[in-house]
C-alpha cells in the first residue's frame, strides 16, 4: 500500500507539468463487501475508445484523458455494470466499489476472474474450464487427476473414481451444482454419475474442512459447478466435438445460455458420448465400449435481494466391462493371472454386451435465497435424486439374457438451509441445517440374492463455521458440525451365517422371522457423528502459509454393513459386518505457497490419523460348487496416512512455461503394522508449454507422467489348492504385487480462429500415451486381466457463439 501511495504522489507531481488530454486515471476496483480486489473488470471511458482491464490487484490505468468530468463504465462478469462520473484534474486516482454479490448467486465457488475458496485455511485446488474441456471426451475422474494428490481408482478406462490423497468412494463427497451426489458411491466399481461437460469449474478440497457440505469427507470434497449467468442481456453457447482414435468414437457436447437484464435466465446443456472397444498397445480390450448421455437445464431469477434457481439434470451411462475380467472361480482367475494377454480377445465392435453396467441418475433441485440488508444471506434448497443401477452378468437361461443381476434404485430427498452473515468485512459466519431421507430398493426380479438390502436412511445435520480476519495478514477459521444417521434395513441372512457371526446373541431384537434356510432381520442402526475444523492463514507479500486441523466422522456405508455375496472380477466373497462403527479421522494439513518473480511454488504436506478405519481383509476360504472362494470381511483398524503434494511452475518468457507436480502418500494399518492396500504410487508430472497469443492463441503442451512402482502394499497372497490334471496342487495367488513403474508421454496443441466478433472456432489435437507404452496401473482393478490403454489421438473442435 505504501508503495502504491508513493506512486500516486509521484503521478500527482508529474501532473503539474502535464498538458491537456494527457492525463492519467489510476483506479482500483474492489468488492463492496469485503474489499477484495476484482480482477478482469473492463473499464471504458464513455464516448471514447479508451479502455483498460483490471489486474490481479484490481488496478487499472486509463491514459490520454482530458481535464474535466468523464463518465467511466465498469463491467465485470459477476457484477452489475457500474457507471460513475469522475472529475479529472491532472493525473487522478479513484477507487471504485462494485456490488460483487452477484457472483454468489448459486454459491459460486470459482469464477475465471476471481478465486473464491470454500475454505480459507485448507488445501484446496481447482480446475478451470479450459482444462475441463480438454477432458470432454473422458470423465470427471480423468480431469481431476490434473490436481496434485488426486489419482483414480479405475475399472478399465471408463469407470474412473477420484481418489484424494489416497482415499475414495464414501470418503469423498461430490457436490454437483450444490447437491451432494447420492449415487451409490460406496462401490469401487461405481463411478460418479455426473457429466463432466455440465461443469465449468471443478474444485477439490483435500480434507473435511468445508463442514457445510458434510462432516464425513475423510478423503475430501469435489465441487462441480455449472455455468453461472450474469445479470445482463446475453445469449451465448458453445459446441464441443471430440473424436478419438482409441475407442473409435467421440463426444458431442453443446450448451446455450440466456441471461436477461431483468434478472431472469435459462440454460440448456447436453452431451452424447459413444465409443467402442478400447485398445491396449497389443490387442483389443473386448467389451469396453461406452454410451453416455447427459442433459442439464436450469432457469432462475436473480437479483441482489432475492432469487431462485431450478435445476434438473439427467445422466445415463452404459459401460461394457472387459469380457476377460468376468470369471467363474479362483482357478479361472489364476489362469487369467498367468496369461499376459486377456483370455478373451474379439474383433473391435461398438456393441456392449454382458458383463456391463447401466446407470441412470436424475437430479432435480430448487433453491432460493434472500439477502437481508446489513446482515447477510439466507439460502434454502430442496433436492431430489433418483439413481438406478443395473449390472448385467453373464447368465444361464433364456430368460436371463437381458435380465440384470443387480438392480438397485436409490431415491434421495434432501432439504438444506443455511444463513451467511457477511456484514462485517473481517468476520463471516455460516450456520445451517441439512435433512435427508433416502430409500434403497433392490429389485427382487433379478432372481439373484441382494448384494445390498432394502433400507431407509435418515440424516440430520447442523453446522456452524466462521472466519475472522486479524489485521491485513492473518485469518483464523473454525467450524463445528453434528450429524445423526439412522439406517433402518430389512435383510435376509443365511440362517447359518447369522448364527456363525454371533448376531443371534448380539442382535436378537432385529430378528423378524425364519423363512426356510434364511432369516429376515430388521437392523436399525444409529450413528452420532461430530466433526470440527480450525485453521489459520498468514498472507505475506509473496507467500502464503496455511495450517488446518479437521476432525471428520463417517458412518459406515451399506456395503460395509451389509455386503453379502460374490464379487465377480475379484473372485472373492465380500461380507459386511453389522457391528461396524463410525470412522473418525484427524487430519492436519499445511500449505506453503510462494510467488517469486516467475516462480510459483506450492508445498502441501498432510497427516491423517483414522480411528476405526474400515477395510476389507482376507479371512479364509469358503467351499462352493465352483471350488473354494477367498472370503474378504470388513474390519476396523486404526490407520494413518502421511503425504505431500507439490506444485511448481516457472514462466521462462512470454512464450515458454513449465509446470511440475509431485504427489506421495504412505498409509499404514496400525493394528497389523502393514501398509494399507490400494494407496496410489508416488507420481511426477512435468509439462512444458509454449504459447503464442498473437498467432491464433496457439498453445502447445508436452506432458510427461511418471508413476513410480508402489513398494508399500499389504501382502495378501494366499495359497490355493487347484486341480491340475485332476490332482490338487497348491498355487500362490498374487493379487497384491503392484505393477512396475511406467512413463507416459502426451502432447496437445490448440489454435483459435475468429469467425465473427462474437464467435470463434478452436481446434485442438490431444495425443496421449504417444509412445504406445504397455503398462498396468496399480489402482486399476482390471490390471489382473489386461494392459491399460494404448495410444489415443483426439481431435477436438470447439465452436463458441
Amino acid at each position: 500500500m505504501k508503495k502504491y501511495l508513493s506512486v500516486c504522489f509521484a503521478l500527482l507531481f508529474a501532473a503539474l507539468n502535464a498538458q491537456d488530454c494527457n492525463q492519467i486515471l489510476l483506479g482500483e476496483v474492489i468488492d463492496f463487501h469485503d474489499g477484495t480486489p476484482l480482477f478482469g473488470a473492463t473499464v471504458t471511458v464513455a464516448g471514447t475508445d479508451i479502455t483498460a482491464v483490471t489486474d490481479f490487484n484490481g488496478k487499472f490505468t486509463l491514459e490520454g484523458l482530458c481535464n474535466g468530468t468523464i463518465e467511466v463504465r465498469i463491467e465485470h462478469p459477476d457484477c452489475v455494470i457500474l457507471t460513475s462520473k469522475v472529475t479529472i484534474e491532472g493525473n487522478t486516482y479513484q477507487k471504485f466499489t462494485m456490488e460483487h454479490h452477484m457472483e454468489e448467486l448459486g454459491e459460486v465457488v470459482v469464477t475465471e476472474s476471481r478465486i473464491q475458496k470454500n475454505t480459507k485455511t485448507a488445501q484446496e485446488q481447482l480446475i478451470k474450464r479450459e482444462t475441463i474441456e480438454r477432458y470432454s471426451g473422458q470423465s470427471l475422474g480423468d480431469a481431476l487427476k490434473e490436481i496434485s494428490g488426486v489419482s483414480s481408482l479405475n475399472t478399465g478406462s471408463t469407470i474412473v473414481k477420484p481418489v484424494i490423497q489416497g482415499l475414495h468412494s464414501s470418503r469423498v463427497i461430490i457436490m454437483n451444482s450444490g447437491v451432494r451426489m447420492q449415487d451409490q458411491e460406496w462401490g469401487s466399481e461405481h463411478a460418479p454419475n455426473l457429466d463432466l461437460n455440465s461443469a465449468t469449474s471443478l474444485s477439490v478440497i483435500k480434507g473435511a474442512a468445508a463442514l457445510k457440505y458434510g462432516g464425513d469427507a475423510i478423503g475430501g470434497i469435489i465441487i462441480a459447478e455449472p455455468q453461472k449467468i450474469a445479470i445482463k442481456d446475453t445469449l451465448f453457447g458453445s459446441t464441443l466435438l471430440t473424436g478419438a482414435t482409441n475407442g473409435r468414437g467421440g463426444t458431442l457436447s453443446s450448451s446455450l445460455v440466456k441471461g436477461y437484464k431483468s434478472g431472469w435466465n435459462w440454460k440448456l446443456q447436453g452431451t452424447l458420448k459413444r465409443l467402442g472397444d478400447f485398445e491396449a498397445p497389443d490387442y483389443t480390450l473386448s467389451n469396453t465400449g461406452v454410451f453416455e448421455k447427459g442433459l442439464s437445464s436450469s432457469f432462475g431469477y436473480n437479483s441482489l435481494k432475492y432469487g431462485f434457481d431450478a435445476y434438473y439434470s439427467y445422466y445415463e451411462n452404459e459401460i461394457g466391462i472387459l469380457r476377460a475380467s468376468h470369471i467363474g472361480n479362483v482357478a479361472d482367475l489364476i489362469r487369467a493371472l498367468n496369461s499376459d494377454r486377456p483370455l478373451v480377445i474379439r474383433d473391435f465392435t461398438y456393441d456392449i454386451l454382458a458383463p456391463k453396467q447401466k446407470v441412470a441418475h436424475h437430479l432435480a433441485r430448487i433453491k432460493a435465497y434472500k439477502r437481508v440488508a446489513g446482515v447477510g444471506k439466507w439460502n434454502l434448497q430442496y433436492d431430489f435424486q433418483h439413481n438406478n443401477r443395473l449390472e448385467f452378468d453373464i447368465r444361464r437361461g433364456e430368460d436371463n439374457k437381458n435380465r440384470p443381476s443387480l438392480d438397485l434404485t436409490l431415491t434421495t430427498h434432501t432439504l438444506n438451509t443455511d444463513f451467511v452473515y457477511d456484514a462485517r468485512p473481517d468476520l463471516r459466519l455460516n450456520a445451517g441445517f441439512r435433512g435427508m431421507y433416502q430409500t434403497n430398493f433392490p429389485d427382487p426380479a433379478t432372481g439373484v440374492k441382494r448384494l445390498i438390502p432394502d433400507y431407509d436412511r435418515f440424516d440430520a445435520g447442523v453446522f456452524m463455521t466462521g472466519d475472522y480476519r486479524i489485521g491485513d495478514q492473518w485469518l483464523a477459521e473454525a467450524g463445528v458440525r453434528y450429524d445423526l444417521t439412522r439406517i433402518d434395513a430389512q435383510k435376509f441372512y443365511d440362517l447359518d451365517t447369522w448364527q456363525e457371526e454371533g448376531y443371534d446373541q448380539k442382535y436378537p431384537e432385529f430378528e423378524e422371522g425364519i423363512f426356510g434356510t434364511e432369516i429376515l432381520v430388521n437392523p436399525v442402526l444409529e450413528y452420532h457423528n461430530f466433526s470440527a475444523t480450525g485453521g489459520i492463514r498468514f498472507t505475506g507479500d509473496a507467500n502464503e502459509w496455511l495450517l488446518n486441523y479437521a476432525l471428520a466422522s463417517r458412518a459406515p456405508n451399506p456395503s460395509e454393513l451389509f455386503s453379502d455375496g460374490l464379487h465377480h472380477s475379484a473372485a472373492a466373497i465380500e461380507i459386511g459386518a453389522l457391528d461396524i462403527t463410525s470412522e473418525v479421522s484427524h487430519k492436519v494439513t499445511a500449505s506453503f505457497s510462494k510467488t517469486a518473480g516467475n516462480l510459483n511454488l506450492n508445498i502441501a504436506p498432510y497427516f491423517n490419523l483414522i480411528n476405526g478405519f474400515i477395510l476389507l481383509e482376507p479371512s479364509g476360504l469358503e467351499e462352493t460348487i465352483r471350488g473354494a472362494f477367498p472370503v474378504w470381511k470388513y474390519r476396523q483398524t486404526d490407520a494413518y496416512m502421511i503425504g505431500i503434494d507439490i506444485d511448481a511452475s516457472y514462466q521462462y518468457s512470454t512464450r515458454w512455461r513449465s509446470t511440475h507436480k509431485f504427489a506421495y502418500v504412505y498409509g499404514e494399518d496400525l493394528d497389523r503394522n502393514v501398509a494399507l492396500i490400494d494407496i496410489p504410487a508416488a507420481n511426477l508430472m512435468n509439462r512444458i508449454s509454449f504459447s503464442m497469443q498473437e498467432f491464433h492463441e496457439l498453445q502447445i503442451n508436452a506432458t510427461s507422467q511418471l508413476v513410480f512402482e508402489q513398494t508399500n502394499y499389504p501382502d495378501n497372497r494366499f495359497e490355493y489348492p487347484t486341480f491340475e490334471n485332476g490332482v490338487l496342487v497348491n498355487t500362490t495367488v498374487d493379487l497384491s504385487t503392484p505393477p512396475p513403474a511406467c512413463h507416459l508421454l502426451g502432447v496437445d496443441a490448440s489454435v483459435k480462429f475468429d469467425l465473427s466478433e462474437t464467435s470463434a472456432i478452436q481446434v485442438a489435437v490431444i495425443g496421449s500415451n504417444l509412445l504406445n507404452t504397455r503398462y498396468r496401473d496399480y489402482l486399476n482393478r482390471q490390471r489382473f486381466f489386461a494392459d491399460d490403454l494404448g495410444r489415443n489421438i483426439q481431435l477436438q473442435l470447439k465452436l463458441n457463439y
Partner: protein
Amino acid sequence: MKNLINTAIALTLVLGMTSCSDDDTPEQINEEEFINEVSLMITETGTANTMTYTWTEGGTAPEPIVIDAEKTYEVEVSFLDSTNPNDIEDITEEVIAEADEHHVFFETSVSGLTIAASDNDFEDSMGNKLGVITNWTATGTTNGNVVVYLIHEPVTKTGTTRDDFGGETDVQVPFTVTVN
C-alpha cells in the same frame, strides 16, 4: 418470497409423509440359476446295474466311485438345485438347451481311465459333444480323482486339460474313483 416459504413448507411435509410409508417386507429371492448338487449316474453298459454318486454343497463328500477294469460304463451327469427339497430343479435341461454356450469336461488323475463322449450325448449346433453323457473305461487297479467341470462360454470345445477351454467355471467338483 412468501411463495417460496410456502413451497418449502409443502416440500417438508411431503418429505415427512414419504418417510413414514415404507414398511413393506421385502420379497424372499430363490436364486434360479443356482446349482448346489452334482450327481453322476453310472450304468454298466449292457446291464441295469446303476449307481448314483452325489456331491452336495455343504454336505459330506460322496462315497468313492468304484468301477471294474475292462468294462464300459455310461455316466450321465446332472446339475441340480435342491435347496428346496419339495421342488428340486434340474439345471441340466438348461445346459442342454444352451449347448452352444456350455461344455462339460471331466479331468482325471486316474491312470488308465478313459473318458469319452457317448454316442447318445447331446450336441451343440456345431456338432460338438456336450459331455453330459460319457463312456468310462479303465484298465488295471488304480485310483484317483475325477473333477467335473461345467464351463460357461468356453473359448474352445476341444482340449485335454481345464486350461485349454478358457471360459468361466460354473461347477468344479471332485469325485474319488477306484478301479478294481
